[in-house]
């Protein structure tokens, strides 16, 4: 080892806690980057393998009923590679020991051989192939796990009004249900919604669909445009009650996985970037100070014939050691956290196997990025070192010129203690230094605001969704739209206080070149249970003419209130109507379109019908109510708000909560790192002066007060800026994370700000305390002997 390296090593040892603080900040940024990039890689790879291996379809369609022969017509569409037809049937499930009614989607297995598309993966038990004996069923894993069902367990279902009991033969997974949630639901509730498969014959008989199908999936030949095939499929299926084909882009499970990856992608850039910038900033502060401290050493090295390159490299190495430590810590942290998060993703994504895969490419990127960050941070300092004229440095630094601080000049000096006045003068003497420290403290504060704003945004969305918009206890849907008098039946159920009808219809909304398929929701004009809220937070009254769109949908369709919009109904008589956009509603998840119920019924031309109802139920009659609903055969789904909310708390909220906790921990670490580093640099600059004070008889307390006073002053100064920076950062990072599926609003709460302020204040106090302890251990003679 060369002696210059030995010097490096000893310098590092002397600065170990500061170097560690910088490395830790860097590690936080890298850990996040490695964690998120690896998760993205894990999810993408696993998903792609799964899709390929189990032949996930590319185009999907539901219809009323078509004879098997139509399958040939579909296969004949140019560009179609493979077709899988079958039956999909909604059924009410009856689970022993569960009050709430559960819904199952039952899909058919082919009469011979395996499924062509959307093949199943057997997790446990055995597969059902061909004409298996009656009364057997395959259950999706999410539901089975949530309800503790195993192969051999029994389950009752009401199929077309007939209760039947099935024995579970196997537990399976399907690429079509990586995310197993009821149609239209943003959140899974695995306890009350499950997917099942049973032999075609049995299901067809139960649903009067023998020799026919109502569900189709297909794949495309390579290079074929999806839109053309979708249009052709729609043409073929139209006579058979086709509800509109759609591609993977509208597939609920696929889009949910895709959105999760998008969110991770946003997180993999924004946060690490902020943290690494902070690390670069800290490296700069540490190195600048180091170069200033070693001014004469640098000059001596130069005088003795060390080249600029050697000296520059010496200080760069200093930074690289820190980077290296940061990378090691970051990789270890990132991998450990990545593993935890992968486990968590099992909660709502069902893959045969989701293994944590380290994104190796990102390691290189991490090394490069953090190396760059450090080099950027060090550059100025090293350049300064390199350009130091050796002769110049032989002279001692001119003594700093002090003068009374501004406040003293204004005649307010007497109000303060000597220590405080000294702190004030210090700040004023070196405004650039004070500014840097203030920026650092502000960054520390700002970083702390971001993760909490995430949490508050989510909470806001949930409260908004579930308290402000959806005020029902339960939503019940009918298997088929029924007459309005059904509403009276619902009202008559035990405990029902209020019932409001709704009608849904699959439609395509077209505005110029933009179109979107979704379920148009019909509601009473002044609904009180499922309300439509405008951007101003007030309820929108549905007009007799026109549709109300969610803000995001209007954005997708490029329309504004007053613009005309074509509605093509994809069901029944398939009417087409052009209506104005009457208003925009605020919501934070997915896209939605609303219409006044009577107007919608009129448009559909099938008479006054409803497809479901929102109900409020008295708490006391809850059990009775549930028991009663189980007896109504036409009921499709029973969606209990609290159950969804609870499910959300256990799954999504937990996962987001975990990520948020990780980030908040990181932010806290970073805040401490920044503040501690600032305190140390400030101590190093003031060492000689403070030691002199001690020598002439100031007490440790009085001298410490100078140091603490300065830090406290700067902290107070930095807070408002920090909160501002934090708000800006939160907004920017939310922007990168927001998708069509979930949009988090920027919510900044006093609690969030208070927490940030508290942490930074605490960090300042702890750092000041540590600095004072160093000061008290100072070898006074040594400090005064060394020229600084």
């Amino acid at each position, binding site marked *: 080892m060369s002696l210059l390296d*030995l010097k490096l090593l000893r310098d590092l040892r002397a600065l170990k806690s500061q170097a560690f603080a910088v490395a830790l900040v860097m590690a936080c940024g890298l850990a996040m980057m490695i964690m998120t990039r690896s998760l993205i890689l894990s999810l993408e790879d696993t998903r792609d393998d799964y899709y390929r291996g189990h032949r996930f379809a590319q185009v999907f369609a539901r219809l009323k009923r078509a004879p098997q022969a139509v399958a040939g017509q579909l296969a004949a569409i140019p560009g179609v590679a493979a077709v899988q037809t079958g039956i999909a049937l909604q059924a009410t499930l009856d689970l022993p020991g569960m009050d709430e009614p559960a819904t199952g989607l039952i899909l058919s297995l082919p009469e011979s051989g395996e499924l062509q598309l959307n093949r199943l993966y057997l997790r446990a038990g055995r597969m059902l192939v061909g004409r298996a004996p009656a009364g057997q069923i395959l259950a999706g894993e999410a539901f089975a796990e949530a309800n503790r069902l195993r192969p051999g367990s029994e389950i009752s279902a009401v199929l077309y009004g007939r209760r039947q009991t099935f024995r579970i033969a196997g537990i399976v997974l399907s690429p079509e249900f990586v995310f197993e949630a009821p149609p239209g639901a943003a959140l899974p509730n695995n306890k009350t919604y499950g997917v099942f498969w049973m032999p075609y014959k049995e299901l067809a008989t139960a649903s009067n669909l023998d020799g026919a199908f109502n569900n189709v999936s297909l794949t495309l030949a390579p290079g074929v445009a999806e839109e053309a095939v979708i249009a052709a499929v729609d043409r073929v299926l139209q006579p058979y009650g086709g509800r509109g084909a759609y591609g993977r882009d509208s597939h609920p499970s696929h889009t949910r996985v895709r959105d999760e990856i998008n969110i991770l992608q946003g997180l993999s850039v924004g946060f690490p970037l902020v943290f690494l910038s902070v690390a670069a900033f800290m490296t700069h502060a540490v190195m600048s100070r180091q170069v200033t401290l070693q001014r004469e050493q640098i000059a001596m090295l130069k005088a003795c014939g060390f080249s600029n390159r050697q000296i520059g490299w010496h200080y760069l190495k200093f930074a690289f050691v820190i980077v290296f430590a940061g990378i090691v810590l970051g990789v270890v942290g990132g991998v450990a956290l990545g593993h935890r998060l992968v486990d968590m993703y099992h909660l709502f994504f069902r893959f045969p196997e989701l293994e944590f895969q380290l994104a190796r490419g990102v390691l290189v990127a991490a090394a490069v990025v953090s190396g760059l960050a450090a080099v950027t941070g060090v550059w100025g300092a090293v350049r300064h070192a390199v350009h130091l004229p050796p002769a110049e440095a032989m002279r001692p630094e001119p003594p700093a010129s002090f003068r009374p601080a501004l406040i003293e000049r204004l005649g307010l000096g007497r109000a303060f203690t000597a220590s405080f006045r000294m702190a004030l003068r210090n700040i004023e003497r070196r405004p650039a230094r004070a500014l840097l420290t203030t920026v650092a403290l502000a960054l520390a504060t700002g970083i702390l605001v971001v993760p909490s704003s995430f949490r508050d945004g989510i909470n806001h969305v949930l409260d908004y969704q579930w308290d402000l918009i959806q005020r029902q206890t339960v939503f019940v849907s009918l298997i088929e739209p029924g007459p309005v008098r059904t509403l009276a039946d619902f009202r008559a159920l035990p405990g029902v206080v209020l019932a409001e009808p709704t009608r849904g219809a699959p439609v395509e909304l077209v505005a110029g070149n933009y179109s979107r398929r979704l379920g148009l929701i019909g509601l009473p004009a002044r609904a009180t249970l499922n309300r439509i809220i405008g951007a101003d937070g007030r309820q929108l009254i549905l007009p007799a003419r026109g549709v109300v769109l969610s803000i995001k949908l209007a954005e997708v369709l490029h329309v504004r209130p007053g613009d005309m919009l074509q509605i093509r109904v994809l069901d029944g008589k398939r009417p087409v109507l052009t209506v104005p956009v009457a208003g925009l509603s605020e919501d934070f998840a997915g896209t939605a379109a609303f219409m006044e119920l009577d107007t919608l019924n009129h448009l559909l031309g099938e008479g006054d019908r409803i497809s479901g109802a929102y109900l409020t139920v008295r708490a006391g009659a809850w059990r009775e109510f549930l028991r009663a609903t189980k007896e109504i055969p036409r009921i499709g789904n029973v969606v209990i708000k609290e159950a969804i909310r609870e499910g959300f708390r256990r799954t999504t909220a937990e996962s987001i909560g975990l990520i948020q906790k990780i980030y908040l921990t990181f932010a806290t670490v970073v805040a401490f790192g920044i503040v501690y580093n600032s305190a140390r640099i400030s101590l190093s600059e003031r060492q000689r002066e403070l030691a002199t004070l001690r020598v002439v008889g100031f007490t440790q307390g009085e001298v410490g007060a100078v140091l603490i006073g300065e830090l406290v002053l700067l902290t107070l100064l930095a807070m408002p800026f920090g909160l501002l920076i934090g708000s800006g950062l939160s907004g920017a990072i939310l922007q990168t994370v927001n998708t069509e599926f979930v949009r988090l609003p920027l919510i900044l709460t006093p609690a969030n700000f208070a927490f940030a302020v508290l942490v930074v204040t605490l960090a300042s106090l702890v750092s000041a305390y540590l600095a004072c302890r160093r000061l008290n251990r100072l070898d006074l003679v040594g400090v005064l002997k*060394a020229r600084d």
Partner: protein
Amino acid sequence: MTRAETPKPFAALARPGEPVFQVRGLTKTYGEGEAAVHALEEVDLDCHAGEFVVVLGASGSGKSTLLNLLGGLDSPTHGTLRYRDWDLAGADEAALTQYRRNSVGFVFQFYNLIPSLTARENVALITEIAPDPMSPEEALHLVGLSARLDHFPAQLSGGEQQRVAIARAIAKRPAVLMCDEPTGALDVHTGIVVLEAIEHINRELGTLTLVITHNAVIAEMADRVLTLSDGRIIHERRNARRAAVGSLAW
């Protein structure tokens, strides 16, 4: 002077009496216009191998400036400055670095030791990059510090630190040795030890030695004594006989 041809000739010692520095009209001005400080003005000077030159002068007279220019730490504002066959005045940074590395030993007024390295390591730092150095132990032995090899600067007295600095300067067997007030902070006895070490190098290796001092007594051990005032050499004196270091007292 290009980089490729520099190292070897710089390293070689000149024969005694051979001219080493040839200085004509050397001027160094700091700042510009009103605020300009003429640290050196039109200085002419010749120095020869093996000479021991003492530079005297009031504070601010330009002594350090002269030494810095000769040692390649700085470049003159104008004037000729030749080191043997090379033009130092026009040399670039890289060439000056090579020059300092191979040919010059510095002893600074303020020691300038690396606090994180021991005495031995401070010397070794330089011998590592010099072409034909003596061992750090030998250099430290010459300044009487054999017993302090593994002490850090903070564990040494001021005089001991200065002696380490001298060991560091002589360890590379330099062609020229520049000492800026090497005994300024030392008591008589230690000062003598330090001067002996410097003289030893001067005699044994034929190193051209320039010593700045405020102490006129030290001038007795020189071949030649220069006196500076306001950036000019106002007086030059040759000693008929160099006094032995041991006989000096102040």
